[in-house]
Structures are given as structure tokens and as C-alpha cells.
């Protein structure tokens, strides 16, 4: 920053620096892509067991009621384009293939956008079958579709020119645009910044929504749904210590309320992220909501400094067995 710059000019520079921080978070985008697509594949796989009852035309709800449950102007779904079991399964398998391509790092903006279309289609086909993880996947895929994320840890990522490791017949599909002197795309950090802000809003909304009787009384762990079904730990043992359940309940509310501020404070960022991992693992195991909470942990990677994640990527790459899984030559 030069001292003779006007205040407006400095504010403008600071504004742009906030939204487009350097360096480009290619490793971060790759890890977000891999984590999101793995959970997406799991959700699609689990949905396969109930595809007919959940999505076919002959399910237990009619279009008028589904419209009443889903009161938006344009409840788009590709499953209204097809009829019959074969076509339903074809669409579902196509959605899984697209998710697999996203995991592999093939044309990632396109695959993320297609996965987003499929996820919205599942959501609007039968709104009564939605879970929290579905909404969170839609959020993650929307940001992943804005920028290439397959240039690191992707099967068609950039490799050294004299060391071509990708499969030769598929080279024309590589997720790569003409080489540029800059480090990555100039806008690649914008979706990550938006995701960070979106996550902060998400936690704040979650904390505010917990300011209800159950949570303020410290008795949320006593919800009969947790007692009867879905819990992976013996909640009865935990409930025999009321002070502990109250402590956990209040701690969870406080964490969600203050996460949106504290995670932006650099000295306490890593403690907050560590707390987020502990909270989400605990809640995931105790509530039986592992996919949702694992995805929250993946999305929390957005707050880890890019240089640290690049180091992680360099550590991961030699561990991968596929020889053509490439890293960027400039790393």
C-alpha cells in the first residue's frame, strides 16, 4: 500500500484483496471437491435402495401435494422428464457417474453443475424425503461449479510436459485450459471466500434456531427421536448425568452462535476449527448423522490457510496409487 493513495483507493484495494486473496487455493478446492463428491456418492448409493418408492411416478404422494410441500415457483426436476423404472434407474446411474467424474476431477465445473442439477431434481421430486445433508450438498456443489477444482489431485490435472502420466486416449478431456503465466484463475479464490461467509451465516442461523425451549432448558439430548432411534451411542448412560447433558447442550449452542465471529480471528481460527471437528464428529456419532457432519467438516476446510492445505496435498499425492493422478507442475 502506497502512502499517497487516497482513502477511497485504499478501501477499494482492501475490498478486492478481501474477495480475491492470494494465493490461488487450488489444493483447497481439490480437497473440497474430493470430500464433497465422496459424500455425494454415498448419499446417491444409499438412495438407490429406495429409488422406486421415493421418486417414481407411483409413489405415495400426488403432484398437487408435492407442490403444496414445495411452494416455489419453479420446482425443477429432471425426473419429471422420464417415466418408467428403466429410465428412472438410468437417470440415477447417470447422476452417480457424474458424481464419480467430479471425484476424479474430470471437467469439474461442468460435473459439479450437473451434480447440482441432479441434487435439486431429487429434492424437488419428493420434498418429504429430504435431509439436511441434501441441502448442504446443494450449497457445496453450487460453489464448486463456479471454478475448476480438478487441476490438483485430478486424473487430468496438469503434469510436467516431459512426464505425461495421464491415460493417452482421454487426454483431450483434461480439465485444463491454455497455460497461463498467473497462478491459477484470477477468480478462483472468490467462491472459497463466498463459501466461508456462507458457512458463517449457516452456523449463525443454526445457533439462533437453537434458542428454543429444549435447548435453553439443556434437555435437547432427551428428544425421544434420539432416545428411540438413530443414536449410535448409549444415550441412556449420558442422560444419567444431567449436568453433563446440559453442559453439552449449552456448549453446542454457544459454539454455533460465536463461530461466525471467532473463526475470522486468526489466533483462534485453528482452535475453532478443531472445536468444529470435535463437535461435528460427536454430534455425527451421537445423533447418527455422520454424512451431514462429515460434510460440515469438509466445508470447514475452506477456512484453513491455502499454504497449509498445499502441504497436505503434497503429502497425499505420493500416497495415491494411480500414477496419473496429477499435481500441478508449478507446485
Amino acid at each position: 500500500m502506497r502512502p499517497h493513495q487516497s482513502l477511497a483507493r485504499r478501501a477499494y484495494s482492501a475490498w478486492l484483496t478481501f474477495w480475491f486473496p492470494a494465493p490461488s487455493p487450488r489444493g483447497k478446492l481439490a480437497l473440497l471437491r474430493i470430500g464433497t463428491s465422496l459424500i455425494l456418492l454415498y448419499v446417491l448409493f444409499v438412495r438407490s435402495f429406495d429409488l422406486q418408492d421415493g421418486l417414481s411416478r407411483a409413489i405415495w404422494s400426488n403432484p398437487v401435494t408435492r407442490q403444496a410441500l414445495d411452494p416455489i415457483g419453479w420446482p425443477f426436476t429432471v425426473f419429471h422428464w422420464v417415466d418408467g423404472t428403466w429410465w428412472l434407474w438410468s437417470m440415477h446411474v447417470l447422476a452417480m457417474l457424474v458424481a464419480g467424474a467430479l471425484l476424479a476431477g474430470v471437467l469439474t465445473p461442468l460435473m459439479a453443475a450437473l451434480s447440482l442439477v441432479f441434487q435439486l431434481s431429487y429434492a424437488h421430486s419428493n420434498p418429504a424425503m429430504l435431509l439436511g445433508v441434501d441441502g448442504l450438498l446443494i450449497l457445496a456443489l453450487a460453489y464448486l461449479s463456479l471454478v475448476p477444482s480438478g487441476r490438483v489431485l485430478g486424473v487430468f490435472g496438469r503434469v510436467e510436459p516431459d512426464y505425461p502420466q495421464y491415460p493417452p486416449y482421454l487426454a483431450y478431456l483434461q480439465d485444463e485450459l491454455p497455460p497461463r503465466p498467473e497462478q491459477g484463475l484470477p477468480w478462483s479464490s472468490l467462491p472459497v471466500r463466498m463459501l466461508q461467509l456462507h458457512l458463517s451465516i449457516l452456523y449463525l442461523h443454526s445457533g439462533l434456531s437453537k434458542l428454543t425451549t429444549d435447548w435453553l432448558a439443556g434437555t435437547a439430548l432427551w428428544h425421544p427421536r434420539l432416545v428411540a432411534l438413530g443414536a449410535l451411542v448409549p444415550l441412556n448412560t449420558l442422560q444419567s448425568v444431567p449436568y453433563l447433558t446440559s453442559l453439552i447442550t449449552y456448549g453446542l449452542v454457544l459454539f454455533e452462535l460465536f463461530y461466525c465471529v471467532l473463526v475470522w480471528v486468526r489466533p483462534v481460527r485453528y482452535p475453532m476449527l478443531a472445536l468444529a471437528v470435535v463437535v461435528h464428529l460427536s454430534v455425527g456419532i451421537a445423533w447418527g448423522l455422520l454424512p451431514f457432519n462429515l460434510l460440515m467438516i469438509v466445508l470447514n476446510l475452506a477456512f484453513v490457510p491455502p499454504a497449509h492445505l498445499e502441504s497436505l496435498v503434497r503429502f497425499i499425492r505420493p500416497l495415491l496409487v494411480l500414477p496419473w493422478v496429477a499435481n500441478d507442475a508449478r507446485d
Partner: protein
Amino acid sequence: MALGVSSYSDGRRRRAEPGPYGPRHPLLNALGRLEATLAHAWPLLRLPLTVLAVVHLVLVALFPGGQNALFGLTTQDTPTYASLFQVPDTLGFYTADGTDGFLVYKIYTQDGGMVNGVFPDTRVAPRLRYDRWATAGNAASGPYPELQDYVVNYVLKQLPSPPLRMELFAGHWTWDRNSLTFPWPGQGPDTTLELHRLGNYNGLTRTWEPSGKEDKRK
């Protein structure tokens, strides 16, 4: 003689534009040219992009489209922001008042027997998470007579023979919050179960007759 460049060879050059590792797909070439154009215009694009991002995030905060599925906020007043994040808010059903809803049906068969059942029945697809079924149950037992008519037809299709009569009730399981305020070992939550008659299916006329007046059993 000047050598003319044929349109064929022009086309060949465009299609076979070399990438760093050989010929590239024409679509990728077009994307590359688009990226180059955007990169040149980048200084002008930065500020409008950030303004769009701010507008989007403000809308997300005010009308949490994606989060409505998580936190039970309504989408009734947000049709204008039917953005990518807009998903149905049916998950808000059970969080609204802390009750679980489901359908109860009684089927009177032709041989004089009677069969009880609930919908959704978690035993039908035990691999599914209970929450999915609970959400479906809250939707099915809600104020949607057309849905209940549809459910009756769905259940009837599963039967080997048409019944004489079928009664449908909405079950609402409410748990007592007061008993939870002072929990101690051995003291479980007191719950209440309410059944509201929704209507009858007449097997003789094969018609669904919704219940007009309140019929509540505790």
C-alpha cells in the same frame, strides 16, 4: 502462384488447435478463448463480481434458501429468490412444535378380519434413516387431504384383495417438555399420543370420504 488457404485447412487448424499435450477438444479450445477474454476484461469485472457475491450472501442470510431445509424456515414469502439454493422446507415439520406425525390405518378385510398399520412403516425399508420416514410421516399426517387420498390408494394397491372398509387417522406424538426440565435417572419423558380421524374408504362404493368434523381420541 500464391497458395490459397482453403477453408478446409482453416477448419482443420481451428479444430486441431494444439494444447500442451496434443490436440484438444474444440469445446475446450472455445473455453480457453473465453477464459482469455475474461482474463483481459478482469480489471473491469472484479468489482461487479464482488457486488453480486454480496447481494447473493445477503439474500442467503435474509432468505436462507438452502438452510430452510435445515432450520425449518419457511419459503412461502421467498418465491422471488428461487435461487440455486432453494430446496423444500419440509424438514421444518417436526422441528416446528416438537411432535412426530404419522398415519394410522385400520383395514377391515372381506373375511371379517381387521389389520392395523402405520404409514410410513420403518420396517418396510429398515436401511433408510428414520428421519427420512419421520419427515414423510409429518407430511402425510398434515393438512393435505389430497395426499391422504393418494396414500389410501397407494396402500390399497399393495393389498391382495380390496377391503370392505378402511379408516385413516393422523397420529401426533407429543412429548412433555415440562418433565424434561428436571431430568433425573429413571424419569423418562411423558408423551401423549393424539389420533385424529381423517376419513374412511368405503370398499363398496370405492370412494374416499374425508372426515368433516373433528374426531379426536387420546
